[in-house]
């Protein structure tokens, strides 16, 4: 039992280090990709090719003055950034990064907690993210953060609904909530092939949940200054961004598990490459797509954003469920 606890803690710490590295280099990747898309070279002064930029940013933010404005609701003001980083870190614990590996005679599954309701757990935890933004906006007691927080609340709950419906097809096909079982069910056919509409809706809804362009209305800087984090400074400010990039890592990992076959190789003859490498390739592919989307489209108008979710995505995802059910029934008969 003690060995099991030690192994779990080691796994968790490795996973934590991996996530934080992804977050740090995610910010650099964002700026580099943005730079190259706009025909610039992006950050290049800190270290070779700007590789030490995340370190410089982190240190700078730690040593900045931590301003708590006089009008704020202090406990809530401090709680909001903690709530911003906690949900993605909670979510990362149930994501399987690969099959089990054998180390010193122990068989170690590459997941911290192999929970059998992993999908439900992920959605429960992910819906906490909205609190950080609403509470942050409310506690600041300033006009722009309040407006940003309200807009964000309406946007995030609208797209959460669609996100929940978009993965229903995958759950029907796999017949399980466990991410490990869902990956096993994709041994031959990845669900992106049988659920293309579901995958598309998942990516759109995830982009909106992450508050990224073209859905970044909560922080529309041309209208709302900085949105919900206008009054935040120093590390508290950085934590909102940390949470956002960690959420991107989680959304990419979940997308890879649910739709892109997790650690399964695309073809059987490529199975000599370890599963974890395939998983990371898929994770970074979705991560890059999110960056790509951000720098390719302009921001939507707020009414367009809300109507798009309720009038188009919601009926479309219902249609996807009914169609999946119908086809499954028909295939079963023949």
């Amino acid at each position, binding site marked *: 039992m003690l060995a099991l606890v030690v192994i*779990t803690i080691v796994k*968790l710490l490795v996973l934590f280090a991996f996530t934080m590295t992804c977050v740090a280099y995610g910010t650099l990747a964002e700026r580099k990709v943005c730079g190259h898309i706009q025909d610039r070279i992006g950050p290049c002064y800190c270290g070779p090719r700007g590789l030490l930029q995340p370190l410089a940013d982190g240190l700078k933010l*730690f040593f900045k*003055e*931590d*301003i708590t*404005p*006089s*009008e704020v609701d202090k406990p809530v003001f*401090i709680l909001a*950034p*903690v*709530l911003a980083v*906690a*949900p993605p*870190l909670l979510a990362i614990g149930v994501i399987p990064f690969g099959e089990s590996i054998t180390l010193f005679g122990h068989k170690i599954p590459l997941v*911290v*907690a*192999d*929970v059998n*309701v992993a999908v439900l757990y992920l959605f429960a935890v992910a819906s906490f993210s909205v609190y950080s933004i609403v509470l942050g906006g409310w506690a*600041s*007691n*300033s*006009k*722009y*953060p*309040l407006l940003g927080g*309200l807009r964000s*609340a*309406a946007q995030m*709950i*609208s797209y*959460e*609904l669609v996100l929940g*419906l978009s993965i*229903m097809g995958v*759950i*029907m096909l796999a*017949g399980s909530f*466990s991410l490990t079982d869902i990956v096993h069910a994709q041994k031959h056919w990845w669900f992106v092939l049988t659920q293309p509409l579901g995958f598309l809706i998942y990516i759109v809804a995830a982009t909106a949940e992450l508050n990224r362009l073209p859905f970044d209305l909560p922080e529309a800087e041309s209208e709302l200054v900085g949105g919900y984090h*206008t*009054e935040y400074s120093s*590390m*508290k400010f950085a*934590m909102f961004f940390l949470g956002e990039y960690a959420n991107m890592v989680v959304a990419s990992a979940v997308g890879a598990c649910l739709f892109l076959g997790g650690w399964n190789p695309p073809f059987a003859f490529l199975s000599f490459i370890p599963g974890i490498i395939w998983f990371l390739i898929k994770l970074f592919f979705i991560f890059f797509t999110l960056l790509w989307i951000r720098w390719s489209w302009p921001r939507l108008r*707020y*009414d367009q954003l*809300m*109507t798009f979710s*309720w*009038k188009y995505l*919601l*009926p479309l995802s*219902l249609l996807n*469920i*009914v169609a999946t059910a119908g086809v*499954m*029934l028909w295939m*079963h008969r023949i």
Partner: protein
Amino acid sequence: MEGVYWPLVFVFLLAVGFGGMAVIMSSLLGPKKPDPIKLSPYECGVDPVGDARKPFHIHYYVIALLFLIFDIEVIFTYPWAVRFKDLGVFGFVEMGVFIAIFLAIFVYVLGKGAFEWE
């Protein structure tokens, strides 16, 4: 296979611990030079006008209520989706009825103009 839940305790401790640590660190490190203008709410440089907490558009409440209704329906569909393979035609028809009711509500709300945003 049964799920393993106890590692989630460590995940929770790490998540909350890290968040708490970062907040405490940022208040310990860094200079402290408060002055009244720096601590006032930001309103593009001019003096703040009135309180921020004013009544806001009622539409936000409507969206929140609609979310509650529809999210409960989504949660109802989850158990069905997991067992769909065993339920067969019976399950399909049952869910057809449920989704028809869902769509009826949707069309009613649409007709009422709840999704229009001015």
